[in-house]
């Protein structure tokens, strides 16, 4: 809001100044604090290992983990590519399947009544318990992995998008009806834009879940197949007591998750910042 309406010497409001200073501090702290705390945690990790002379096959220090990451980069990076491929493919299929089913659900109540229970059953059954069956019935390992990751990831997209498609303003719905909008026009111009923020919320959850799904499926698929993703490498390193490599692979998985979340958040910001409440910064 305007600071002063006086055209004499500018008035100084102590409270406003304090508020401005607090804002500035907060802005800096937002970036500095996490960096400082994480650095400190890594430093303490290193110290604990050194002070207690913990052997590297129990707990490797952060330096050794990085060293292993670099040394084994060729193997780990190709494993990362495998896991990433499954994750992203599962996410893509989850988006298509989730949004597609949500649209079908809103087009026909009877369709929703008939098939929603299936979606819930798939969601509440832990993927670890379905995965062995999937690998029995699905010959192709890659398809099996994809299916597992998809089962985990598609539900948040489906339920969020369905909620969004059903959240249209009732007056706008009336207006569309008065103007003689077709079903397709209503979907495209009204329901899909209304559902967008909901969908993007679901996407953020599904991104992380598809990674979890891919990793869990790899564990279940075990060493028998084409498995050379990160989870497989962790299993393999575990058998060989190569703890530093386990940590290095773990680090890559965590980093992948963070990157996926950041990408989804960025996409959300780009699509919503012009109009949606969630993306608008308010004064005061």
């Amino acid at each position, binding site marked *: 809001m305007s600071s002063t309406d006086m055209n004499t010497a500018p008035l100084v409001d102590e409270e406003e100044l304090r508020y401005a200073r607090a804002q500035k501090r907060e802005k800096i702290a937002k970036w500095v604090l996490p960096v400082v705390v994480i650095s400190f945690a890594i430093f303490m990790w290193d110290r604990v290992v050194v002070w207690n002379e913990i052997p590297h096959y129990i707990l490797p220090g952060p330096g050794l983990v990085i060293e292993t990451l670099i040394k084994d980069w060729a193997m780990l990076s190709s494993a990362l590519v495998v896991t990433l491929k499954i994750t992203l493919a599962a996410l893509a299929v989850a988006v298509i399947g989730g949004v597609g089913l949500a649209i079908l659900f809103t087009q026909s109540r009877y369709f929703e009544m008939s098939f929603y229970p299936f979606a819930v059953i798939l969601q509440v059954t832990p993927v670890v318990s379905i995965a062995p069956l999937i690998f029995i019935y699905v010959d192709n390992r890659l398809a099996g992995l994809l299916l597992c990751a998809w089962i985990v990831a598609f539900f948040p997209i489906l339920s969020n998008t369905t909620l969004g498609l059903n959240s249209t*303003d009732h007056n706008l719905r*009336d207006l569309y009806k008065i103007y003689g909008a077709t079903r397709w*026009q209503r979907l495209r111009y009204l329901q899909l*834009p209304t559902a967008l923020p909901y969908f993007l919320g679901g996407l953020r959850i599904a991104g992380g879940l598809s990674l979890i799904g891919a990793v869990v499926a790899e564990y279940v698929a075990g060493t028998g197949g084409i498995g050379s993703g990160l989870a497989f490498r962790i299993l393999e390193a575990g058998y060989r007591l190569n703890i530093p490599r386990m940590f290095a692979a773990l680090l890559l998985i965590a980093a992948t998750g963070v990157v996926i979340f950041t990408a989804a958040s960025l996409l959300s910001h780009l699509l919503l910042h012009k109009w949606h409440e969630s993306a608008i910064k308010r004064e005061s």
Partner: protein
Amino acid sequence: MTLPTSIPPMGQREKLLEMSSVDKVFNGNVVALKDMNLTVNQGDFISLLGPSGCGKSTALRLISGLMRPTSGHINWEGGQDTGDLGVVFQEPTLMPWATVEQNVWLPFRLRGKSLADVRDEIIWALKMVGLEKFQKSYPRELSGGMKMRVSIARALVTEPRLILMDEPFAALDEITRHKLNNDLLELRDKLKCTVIFVTHSVFESVFLSDRIVVMAARPGRVSSEVTVDAPYPRTEEFRTSANYADLCRKASDALHGAMNEHGERASA
């Protein structure tokens, strides 16, 4: 649809729409509207005034075609198509993801016309409500009154034969409401359009309309009609005139009559 060049005095206007013995029953037993008869003429500014539950919004929904009467008929002179109607709700009801011009484009867009094709009409409608400079703004950047103006621009962009307004200014502050009342009358004077305006404010109905249809509740029905024979243009001076006060008293009496009618029924 072309609009008339001037509004003839009441009694000489051509018929636009007729509701004859319209009933609406909800859930098989709630009578929302009973035996409503209303003739709307071209150029009429009709207020539907009444307590809540008197069926004024139901009447509007019936006229807009969102609901069908349980019995009775609603007939448009010369038939009706989707461009004949403009609607303004109590909320601005704008699409937050669309700019002002895209919002005003909606009635045309739903008829398959591109934005470029109807740009002139959109600019014309925005000029009518004084918002031509805000074409590219998003609704969230506008004040409550400005959002309402966009909503009005959207309602009149197709030059409809009839504009339905369902308590459009009820959620606005008094000052903004007065301003929009004045502007609405100015618009009506320019466009010679026909308006049905739902309100529960006696003062607003007297200021705006030339016919006030007073409605009573349980069951919703027309109780009486008050003719406001003050000449247009009506300005702020009219708002403070003795004539206005008299007319308000008349409308207020009619409204109380409608409420007592209900009271008698209840006690009987």
